[in-house]
């Protein structure tokens, strides 16, 4: 475990240890005997001798709290531990084997949940007589089903994962899979459950003792103390306060500790991110005053940053391209190239942690006036989304709301922009336009009743409902089969013709798809555009070594061996100095790593970010 991960554990850990140490050390601490009565000075307040005062029998409250902690904590921990072991085992077995085993373990343990907890505890206590051991047993029975359920649910989702199947494929015995693969991976929610259970067990122990069913007087326990203090509540309210404080404080410390422990055990660590629409706008320098080019969309010098542990990390740097009305621009790149973030920046849908720090995004709206989307206030941006610009997402099954009818969701984009009349008919017309068979029925269907391709068609219908000027498609066919992909690409091409003047930005990793549909292409690598130009020209004669290598590595043609680009895309926080592609580039020379190359014009409306573009053939 890393030191950075342990640090958050220190504070709650020290507190929890202090509480436990106090309880353990009670016999050797210079405390008054917790059961020695001093009726003469009953209900006296705090004094030098008795720091927290004396109770209804004149016993020392501080001493009783510390001695009571021994009982409360040991009962709670023992009960929670017993419940955790038994419940986890039941849930793990039930979730892994399913079938009869599930019936005998998880379902059987759930019967316990049918009884009111207090009644069940009463039953056990009545059968076995009061006392700490009985209390542990009854609490363990009460809390085990909770662990069983959590372990069961986690096991169910974990056993379907490939790494569990991989263990089976390796021939691992079942016990090994359960203990070494499943248990560590279902542990985090169980740890949280444990902290909640310890807390709940302490509360229930107090409750049962309060009712006279738990710890037997005169042994001190927090529940008994609350019970005793209740009768004297009006004379000495503080008596009630101390055990309650002890109870609440311990519960909170435990919860905090277990939460931090779970985070520390997560190998990936917690994602950090700050909310910030306001911060986003404030971070931006004023827009450059150069006149906008007469294009539909022009992105200039777009730079995006995310906060990192060692200061902001630039994930998109100086990205620029232009799109004329009626054109399709493909942004192509590998994962980590910044292509999706660039697309989201255009829509103003950047994740909270990502901040634009420079550049501008000019979009000519329907009225023809160009606006800078990066600096537009959210309400105006919202008015433009869906009307001037619309977006199609990658996964059609998660981008439609499963609870609403398809027609209602397509109609929503009309309604959001002030259309009120004839929505039903327009929805059906739209669904017909995107090629859904039987559009009347599709309008009243729920998303799960449509296939993947049909859902994507419905998403497209919602996107084009208001005849947007710009359609942004983020990997819209990646989740689809090739025959369906071909249909959707054809549909998009048809729509673009029908919508006359609608521009399309198509984000993809698939070069062949780019070749099919794009007029222009912007190739991105490691957060930068490395080449931009007409798609056909770029593919026929790339001017950047990365574009060339990417085309070469596409598995087409009859070459015996694929030519692969060595190495991997650099991480945003470890960008090479100079040209970012240089470490993987076959043409790199010392000068390439010295300074970052700028975009150079390589032809009419073509540019590449390479010092040696003339030599790339």
């Amino acid at each position, binding site marked *: 475990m890393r030191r950075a991960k342990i640090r958050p554990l220190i504070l709650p850990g020290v507190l929890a240890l202090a509480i436990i140490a106090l309880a353990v050390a009670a016999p050797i601490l210079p405390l008054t005997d917790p059961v020695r009565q001093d009726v003469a000075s009953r209900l006296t307040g705090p004094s030098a001798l008795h720091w927290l005062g004396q109770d209804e029998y004149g016993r020392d409250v501080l001493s009783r709290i510390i001695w009571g902690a021994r009982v409360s904590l040991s009962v709670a921990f023992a009960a929670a531990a017993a419940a955790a072991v038994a419940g986890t085992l039941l849930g793990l077995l039930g979730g892994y084997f399913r079938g009869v085993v599930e019936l005998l373990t998880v379902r059987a343990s759930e019967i316990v949940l049918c009884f009111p907890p207090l009644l069940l505890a009463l039953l056990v206590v009545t059968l076995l007589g009061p006392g700490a051991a009985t209390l542990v047993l009854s609490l363990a029975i009460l809390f085990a089903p909770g662990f069983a359920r959590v372990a069961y649910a986690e096991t169910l989702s974990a056993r379907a*994962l*490939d*790494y569990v*199947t*991989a*263990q*089976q*494929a*390796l*021939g*691992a*015995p079942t016990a*090994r899979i359960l203990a*070494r*693969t499943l248990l*560590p*991976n279902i542990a985090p929610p169980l740890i949280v459950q444990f902290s909640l259970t310890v807390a709940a067990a302490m509360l229930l122990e107090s409750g049962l003792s309060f009712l006279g069913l738990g710890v037997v007087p005169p042994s001190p326990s927090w529940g008994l103390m609350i019970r005793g203090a209740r009768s004297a509540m009006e004379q000495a309210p503080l008596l009630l306060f101390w055990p309650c404080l002890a109870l609440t404080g311990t519960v909170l410390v435990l919860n905090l500790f277990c939460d931090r422990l779970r985070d520390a055990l997560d*190998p*990936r660590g917690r994602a950090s991110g700050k909310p910030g629409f306001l911060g986003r706008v404030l971070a931006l320098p004023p827009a450059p005053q150069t006149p906008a080019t007469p294009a539909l969309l022009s992105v200039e010098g777009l730079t995006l940053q995310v906060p990192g542990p060692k200061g902001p990390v630039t994930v998109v740097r100086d990205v620029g391209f232009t799109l004329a009305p009626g054109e399709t621009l493909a942004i192509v790149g*590998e*994962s980590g190239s910044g292509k999706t973030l660039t697309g989201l920046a255009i829509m103003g849908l950047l994740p909270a942690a990502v901040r634009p720090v420079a550049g501008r995004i000019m979009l000519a709206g329907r009225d023809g006036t160009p606006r800078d989307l990066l600096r537009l206030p959210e309400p105006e941006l919202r008015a433009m989304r869906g009307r001037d610009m619309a977006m199609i997402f990658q996964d059609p099954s998660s981008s439609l709301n499963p609870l609403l009818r398809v027609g209602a969701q397509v109609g929503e984009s009309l309604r959001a922009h002030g259309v009120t009349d004839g929505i039903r008919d327009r929805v059906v017309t739209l669904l017909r336009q995107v090629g859904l068979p039987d559009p009347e029925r599709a309008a009243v269907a729920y998303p799960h009743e449509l*296939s*993947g*391709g*049909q859902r994507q068609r419905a998403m497209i219908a919602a996107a084009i409902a208001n005849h947007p000027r710009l359609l942004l498609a983020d990997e819209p066919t990646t989740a689809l*089969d*090739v*025959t*369906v*992909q*071909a*249909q959707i*690409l*054809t549909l998009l091409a048809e729509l673009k013709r029908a919508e006359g003047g609608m521009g399309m930005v198509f984000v993809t*990793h*698939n*070069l*062949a*798809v780019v*070749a*099919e549909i794009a007029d222009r292409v912007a190739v991105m690598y490691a957060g930068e555009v490395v080449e931009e130009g007409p798609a056909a020209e770029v*593919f026929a004669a790339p001017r950047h070594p990365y574009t060339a*290598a*990417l*085309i070469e*590595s*596409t*598995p*087409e*043609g009859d070459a015996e*061996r*694929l*030519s*692969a*680009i*060595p190495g*991997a*895309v650099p991480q945003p926080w470890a960008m090479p100095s100079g040209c970012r592609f240089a470490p993987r580039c076959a043409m790199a020379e010392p000068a390439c790593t010295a300074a970052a190359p700028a975009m150079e014009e390589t032809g009419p409306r073509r540019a590449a970010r390479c010092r040696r573009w003339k030599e790339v053939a």
Partner: protein
Amino acid sequence: MIAPLIRGEGLTRIFHRRGGFLGRGVPMLALRGVDIAVNRGEAVGVVGESGCGKSTLGRVMLRLMAPSGGRVLFEDRDLATMGGAELRALRRRMQMVFQDPYGSLDPRRSVGAQIADGMAIHGIAQGAEAAERVAALLRQVGLDPTHAQRLPHEFSGGQRQRIAIARALATRPDFIVADEPVSALDVSIQAQVVNLLADLRAELGLALMFISHDLHVVRHLCDRVVVMYLGLVMEEGPAAEIFRAPAHPYTRALLAATPSMHHRAMTAPLAGEVPSIARPPSGCVFRTRCPMAQPACAESIPVLRPLPGADGRQIACRRAEEIAA
């Protein structure tokens, strides 16, 4: 003729989508009688769209899933008749590489420990010897052997897929099922992993069942191709032949729909989508989307038979003669 290393005969697999209360639910026919054989050292590509049963076939072949009908024979031994211990011992010789390099590695254990798992389970190597083998395997798949102590999330997708391949190789298997091993990877990384698989196959004489929806990748890596649709084999034969002259209307449509950088395809993309495996069409399963379908195609499921005039090719189409002519 030499006996194949592993073969499946008449494999069927039925899933039951949960129906109402107490109901057994709708039967979904994921595999509907598939014969497949993989010879020693041979790479067989299984291609098809989602729902064609290719992943189910891979798992049934390794008996990670029991077939509902038919049998799998590894060196003429029926996997179904083996005891648990015997089957686990046999797993040393057949391994799997999964699609998702993020889900196929345990996020909480070091990659070295995971690669060593197979060796520990099968008593191949332990302690320092295992560590040495792990280092050698990491080197073999092109990774830094000193990174064995790292956790999976410290690697990129392509590197993780290399680790998964190293894990599969650790037991020195004879047969590997690779289920879409490069689909989740970037193009430039895909090429690296495809080349790695090709090298390893040549080096170690591995038999490979390569499951993919990407025809181009299959063409690069495989000797033979099996084209599947809705749980049935449509066409089978030498990879080069099938790509040069696809015979089955489905294979043709699949090739035509695959986007290419060199020619704008999409002349006439197939209409409609793959029908649900809960309600497959009667007769030939492809007839609902087939441009050559005739009323007779609905009558019976066409059997896989040799394509007239083409050596080593098989096709399941009533009109095979017309196609061949």
